[in-house]
């Protein structure tokens, strides 16, 4: 499903090509000048290719430091790209010209955050929070109309209309996450970037939010980019899954395939490390070692020091993405396997 062969109608809503984002984390200049330190670059996201079909959910999973949140923020335009391009509905998003068209397009991408306590301005009433996107994007809207929109949105996410008059601190975590969703929906988006929207919630509340998200997707035809480290939640919400490790996408594909038949050794290990409730008392097999610092990732394939299948090549060369069906995997071992097969 390469982009150029796609007919316009079936074109993915979001296309990422070789997306990279580097952060300069060098010591201060005087440190480099007098102490002989050198520039250091944190390659938070390094060459990610992804397509996100309209109306579907793509999840990104990985451990801390893998770059999934950075990728989410790149998609929503909070950071400029260091390399590559992101196209949204055919429009190049790396161009920031402040034009009307650009702003209109940006409106169509909204975001839900992880921390339900930090994502709502504590000094604002809910009505004002949810009304803000309307105020910004539809400045012509009258007071009464806005109020009724807010009420509609609140109902849509399962809250009472009288919630509008209250402040965020009067709500529980789950309710706040609903308010967050309502605010995102107020901009009438096509794409929702969800950055760990349930990881701060209790399971019972997580279930409510996940259900709500799926309902809304069906109802409004939303497209989700879902970021999480929780594989169970990902399994439930996703159509497609991408696995990231130290800034690189190591494997991606249809969720069903990936969960049933993980190809990359890291994906396999990750799946194994999830405790299985069906077999209580069974110890998981942990991955050896810890995630290395993203500041100094191992050369070659970043996973090689922890990989049971690592070969000499893995320590020097970086494997490319091998396409397998609607997806791909970056692993020399898998490459060889496919080649011999």
């Amino acid at each position: 499903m390469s982009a150029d062969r796609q007919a316009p109608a079936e074109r993915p809503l979001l296309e990422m090509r070789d997306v990279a984002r580097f952060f300069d984390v060098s010591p201060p200049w005087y440190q480099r000048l007098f102490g002989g330190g050198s520039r250091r670059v944190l390659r938070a996201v390094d060459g990610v290719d992804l397509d996100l079909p309209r109306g579907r959910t793509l999840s990104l999973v990985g451990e801390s430091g893998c770059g999934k949140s950075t990728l989410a923020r790149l998609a929503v335009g909070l950071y400029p790209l260091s390399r590559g391009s992101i196209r949204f509905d055919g429009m190049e998003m790396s161009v920031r010209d402040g034009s009307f068209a650009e702003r209109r397009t940006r409106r169509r991408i909204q975001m839900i955050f992880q921390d339900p306590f930090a994502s709502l301005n504590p000094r604002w009433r809910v009505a004002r929070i949810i009304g803000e996107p309307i105020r910004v994007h539809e400045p012509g809207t009258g007071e009464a109309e806005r109020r009724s929109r807010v009420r509609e949105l609140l109902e849509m996410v399962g809250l009472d209309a009288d919630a509008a008059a209250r402040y965020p601190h009067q709500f529980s975590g789950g309710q706040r996450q609903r308010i967050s969703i309502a605010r995102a929906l107020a901009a009438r988006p096509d794409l929702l970037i969800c950055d760990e929207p349930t990881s701060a919630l209790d399971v019972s509340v997580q279930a409510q939010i996940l259900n709500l998200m799926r309902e809304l997707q069906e109802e409004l035809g939303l497209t989700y980019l879902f970021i999480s480290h929780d594989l169970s939640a990902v399994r439930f919400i996703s159509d497609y899954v991408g696995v990231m490790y130290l800034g690189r996408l190591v494997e991606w594909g249809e969720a069903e395939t990936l969960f049933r038949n993980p190809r990359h050794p890291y994906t396999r290990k990750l799946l194994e490390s999830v405790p299985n409730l069906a077999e209580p008392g069974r110890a998981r097999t942990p991955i050896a070692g810890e995630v290395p610092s993203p500041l100094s990732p191992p050369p070659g394939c970043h996973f090689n020091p922890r990989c049971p299948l690592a070969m000499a090549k893995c320590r020097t060369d970086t494997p490319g993405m091998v396409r397998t069906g609607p997806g791909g995997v970056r692993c020399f071992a898998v490459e060889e396997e496919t080649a011999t097969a």
Partner: protein
Amino acid sequence: MTRLLPFMLYRLGQGVLVMLVVAFISFSLFTHVGDPINNMLGEEVDETYREQLREDLGLNDPVPVRFIRFVGNAVQGEFGVSYRNSIPVAQLFGERLPATLELVFAAAVIALALGIPAGVYAAIHRSRPSAQVIQILSLIGISLPTFVTGILLIYVFSISLDLLPSFGRGEVVDLGWWSTGFLTASGLKALVLPAVTLALFQLTLIMRLVRSEMLEVLRTDYIRFARARGLPDRLIHFRHAVRNTLVPVITITGLQIGSLVAFAIITETVFQWPGMGLLFIQAVQFVDIPVMSAYLVLIAFFFVVINFIVDILYHAVDPRLSGTLSDGSGKGMP
């Protein structure tokens, strides 16, 4: 050291910049303060001579010329000659600096030696009435302007009780160019009242700062964890908590020492303490421009030096700031 040294060099460069700016500000400001001529000469001197002197003093030159002359000289330690005393400013400062530094040092010692324990006490026993009394008493101490406190202390300790001298430095001993009052009984006695007066304000500030920082620290997980390990309170409070409290306290205290130098202006006036502050206020009244400019540059220099020391202390106290870089993956994404 690999990280400390460049940082120090950087701070040094910053310090030089700060001092240049201060030198410029102070100098250009003082060109507007007033006319020193009337103070140098009595009323009876006639105008031609005044004009002559004004010309001689270079007061008629354009400001930039005077500033460049000023900086050029200052770099060589030359601040000119005081209009008021006809003594080179450097020499004047040499005589006055020890007095002020000893006063400020004594005040800082008092403030720290009493402020830190009082703050720690007030934090540990937050709900005890005694701690609250300390809190309120400390506030009363700073609710009166310094000069009133000073005069009150003189009234009580010099006049009524006749215990301590009301003015001056007492006998001083010359150690090379440094004259110290620390080595004689009368010098030490003379130090008490001014040092206490000067320390009072800072004492309260430090006490309150230590208290609130300590309260924060006492709530941290590592203190809870230390408790959970059954470490004695003494160890938890005075080893773990106090040390963590000191990190922010160092900065503020450093800055406070700067204001000690400034508040010494008042204390020195009240107690006729022959230091920089008294010199400065007399210079202001006399429009003794060389002394005023040099004073401000010196204050800036103090500030730079204190900041420098604070930075070093910081590194000494907090291992996170020096030594090897973290090799863990604890660092989150920006």
